[in-house]
């Protein structure tokens, strides 16, 4: 039984780590703010879910597991909300999305 839980949690942790790295690379390599927030904001939520669930499977007591699940719940509320607010604020501020053809490249690095 424990070996099943272990394997499941390892799969979750490995998947979460992969998503983390993908998000990090996206955050660094994407050409403008909106695509960066896409990369970071989307992977953030799923990798938090996977890593915290993986840790919950390793928890040895009920209160610890409950606290990890609470952390997960709060992250699921705050993460997307913050991403939404940042994107909306940037749009409100007049930041133009980057376009691959000429023009509109105000925020291109």
């Amino acid at each position, binding site marked *: 039984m424990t070996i099943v839980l272990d394997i499941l949690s390892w799969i979750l942790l490995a998947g979460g780590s992969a998503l983390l790295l993908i998000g990090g690379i996206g955050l660094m390599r994407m050409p403008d703010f909106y695509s960066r927030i896409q990369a970071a904001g989307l992977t953030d939520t799923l990798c938090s879910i996977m890593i915290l669930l993986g840790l919950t499977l390793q928890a040895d007591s009920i209160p610890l597991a409950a606290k990890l699940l609470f952390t997960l719940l*709060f992250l699921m*509320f*705050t993460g997307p*909300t913050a991403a*939404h*607010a940042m994107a*909306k*604020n940037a749009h*409100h501020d007049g930041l133009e999305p980057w376009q691959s053809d000429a023009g509109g490249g105000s925020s291109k690095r």
Partner: protein
Amino acid sequence: MNQYIVLRVVSRLLIPVILIFALYVQFHGEYSPGGGFQAGIMFTAAFVVYSLLFGLEEVQRAFPPVAAHVLSAGGALLYIAVGYATMLLGGNFLEYKVLLPNDQAGETFGIIVIELGVGITVAAVALSLYYSFAGRFVDREAGD
């Protein structure tokens, strides 16, 4: 100007949770990390986020600046009062074990009370600082 409707809805859900978690940190400080200082700051953070999204005036109606000023002295006075109480009961200043017949229970009781005093002072002080900074900007904006 309805920019922050999502933030307002989510924050309204989260503010009670922050307040409850602050109380947990305050009164669970004997068993897990935490205590008055951390709890006071978290308590203030809940009020700050409400003010950020609903306006300073709304928060000051719930927690007037005068109350914050009085409570920031009140917490410290509660702490000192515990010290004098122990002296009246025949111990040294802040020697909690004279508070209750059982030594351990007395110590625990004294620690809980003074942590409450610390928490009240820190929360009230942090909130007054926030009022000072935010209120000044509101005044300036109205004056322009």
